[in-house]
């Protein structure tokens, strides 16, 4: 598992990735995923965080898919000019 020749050279210099850094990153992930954020954060294991993260990303993907389906249908049925006008109007008014 190598992500390029440069990074493998770097890995040998920085030896191991420290646990603190991993914990830091995992805690950052923990704060992002709403499922975990609402529970008590101290008792969540790393694998659970990863699992919830994967589920969350899948959910977000599905939401984006649904939204793009709806947008696609809307775009095909709506007149193009009025759609543009509505978008521009909203951007101006904000």
């Amino acid at each position, binding site marked *: *598992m*190598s*992500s390029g020749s*440069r*990074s493998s050279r*770097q*890995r040998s210099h*920085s030896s*191991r*990735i420290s646990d603190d*850094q*991993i914990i830091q*990153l*995992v805690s*950052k*992930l923990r704060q*992002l*995923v709403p499922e975990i954020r609402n529970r008590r954060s101290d008792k969540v294991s*790393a*694998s659970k965080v*990863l*699992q919830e*993260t*994967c589920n*969350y*990303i*899948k959910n*977000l*993907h599905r*939401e*984006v*898919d649904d*939204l*793009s*389906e*709806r*947008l*696609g*249908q*809307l*775009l*095909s*049925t*709506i*007149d*193009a000019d*009025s*759609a*543009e*006008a*509505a*978008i*521009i109007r*909203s*951007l101006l008014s*904000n």
Partner: protein
Amino acid sequence: MSSLQPNVDSTNSEAMQRSNPKKRRKIGHSNSLSLVPWRSETQQRIYSSKLAEALRHVIHRNPPSPPAKSSAGREVRETADRVLASTAKGRTRWSRAILASPLNRWKLRRMHKKVHKASTGLPKKSPETRRRLPVVQKKARVLGRLVPGCRKLTFPNLLEEATDYISALEMQVRAMTALTELLTGGGSLASA
């Protein structure tokens, strides 16, 4: 008022990036990757306007009668992803991966879902991988497959990419929801 702020942020972060030209993305530098404030409203507005313009091209490419409604969704999704990646300013790996191969992504996705490699035993056991529990290793692999372009990243880099990707996706959902509501309201007004 608020539109001035992101400009200042981006110039500051760009200056910081240029001051360390030789340092690669090490984990200690927390400001190395996610420089785009995905949560800010201005960012969402930037994305919405870019998306609106890109979608306008899509509309004009398929004039009055679109070919098939099933493909429109995919086109919108691809457009949205591409605009999201361009809004990321190319500093993250996932954004570069999206911009690099827009056509192959969806076909590869469907192929990969069917192909289930039964390679549970790792051929190489470098010191890092032995430290991780195999369960975590498996989950990290799944995560690497979900985030575009991050299949062969080291674990900490993968986590960094994932955090940025999640924030970006959330913003994408918010912007597209707002756009949908806008078009729904605008459509009913126009037809009346």
